[in-house]
């Protein structure tokens, strides 16, 4: 299991439709993020105990996720419930995928990689949000964070310079002009970092053009960081 003391953002809520799964990494460890057909999100280790296949290659049926290789089906607690090759078998309780506590808040799916993290509150306010995008940058977590809190993020509405409030490790609220963004950083692997961006505001104000505005900024930010020859904090 990955040891982290706080909640880790792993995806935008809107990026995962009911009945689908996606793989991701936290600190280089493979996770599957999946949503059952009733809409609840789950985050597990991305490994079928049978042959080690990534569960994120598999498929969701109702509140079970099945491995692509041999169809072993797991319930929402990670417990294997059905093995197609042995349909009458009462599956041993030891066949279980390690699970993380998962939650959704502020437009983002979060995983608690430790019991210590799960007991803490997710440091984000509820309220209306407009999703922008997740962006994956080939730079380490610390470098991305240093550049982010010095970044020039042009406002969509208003024109005051951006202000940054770090509310938890890697979780930043940006106030730029009249806009408020939540940027949640995911330590993907030692050389790569994911940013999950949402606008804290209304779809009426930000739907379409506002989303494009901040998505374009994120793409420019990625380009600047990845092409920087000088330390990233100075260019972004």
């Amino acid at each position, binding site marked *: 299991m990955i040891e982290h003391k706080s909640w880790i953002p792993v*995806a*935008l809520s809107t*990026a995962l*439709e009911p009945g*689908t799964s*996606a*793989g*991701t*990494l936290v600190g280089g460890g493979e996770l599957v993020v999946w949503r059952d057909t009733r809409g609840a999100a789950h985050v597990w280790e991305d490994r079928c105990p049978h042959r080690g296949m990534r569960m*994120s*290659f*598999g*498929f969701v049926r109702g509140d079970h996720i*099945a491995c*692509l290789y041999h169809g072993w089906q797991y319930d929402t607690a990670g417990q294997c419930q059905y093995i197609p090759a042995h349909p009458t078998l009462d599956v041993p309780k030891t066949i279980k995928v390690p699970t993380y506590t998962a939650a959704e808040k502020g437009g983002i799916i979060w995983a608690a990689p430790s019991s210590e993290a799960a007991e803490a509150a997710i440091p984000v306010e509820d309220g209306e949000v407009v999703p922008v*995008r*997740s962006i*994956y940058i080939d730079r380490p977590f610390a470098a991305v964070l240093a550049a982010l809190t010095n970044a020039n993020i042009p406002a969509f509405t208003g024109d005051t310079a951006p202000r940054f409030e770090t509310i938890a490790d890697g979780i930043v609220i940006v106030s730029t002009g009249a806009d408020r963004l939540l940027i949640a950083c995911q330590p993907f692997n030692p050389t790569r970092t*994911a940013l999950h961006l949402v606008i804290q505001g209304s779809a009426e104000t930000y*739907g*379409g053009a506002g*989303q*494009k505005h901040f*998505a374009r900024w994120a*793409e420019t930010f990625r380009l600047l960081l990845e092409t920087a020859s000088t330390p990233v904090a100075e260019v972004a």
Partner: protein
Amino acid sequence: MPAITLYNYDLDENSFRVRLMLAMLKLEHATIAIDMFPGQEQTRPAMLAINSQGTLPVLVDGDLTLAGTEAILSYLAKAYDPARTWLPEDAAGFGRVQGWLHFSATMLENAKQARLQALFDTPGDETALRAAARKAFRIMDDHMTARHFDGADWFVGDKPSLADLTLFPSFALSRDFGIDHDEFPALRLWIRKFRALPGFFTMPGIPDYH
């Protein structure tokens, strides 16, 4: 014997593009299997007499023999899609679809080469091919991210077109050469929509289940 014949190799993603188009247009056709790997049969005299370029796929429709994946797709859409959705009639839509067909033949060629290298040990710089393939997928993901903001599900216009059809296989097959779908959320949503189209079917490397 149907009028249309496809010279095909099942593991060739360009042949799959044409198989998909034929299925989605519900066109009866004959398929002739060509031993691309390891035989390189498409470069032998018998096949060169049909297609001097020595490539697959090759489509024969009556008196017409066509090579070049994008040309075959465009021809089939023009000839057999009276609704003009796969290849739009309007100049801007036509241009945009041609743009993605060009992208598929150029930038996505890296993904095609990376896959062939992983499966068949063909020559090339593995690291460079994968990096270039990933760059192409990012361009696609950025595009579909912006499209979703406009409420659009497809690369061009409000219906699936040849743009979607030609881009789908390389991304769907990317795990063959070690690029996961983890970093491309907009493309994940898009391939799910594409898989639900009438006539869709898979090839080896693309899971049947989803």
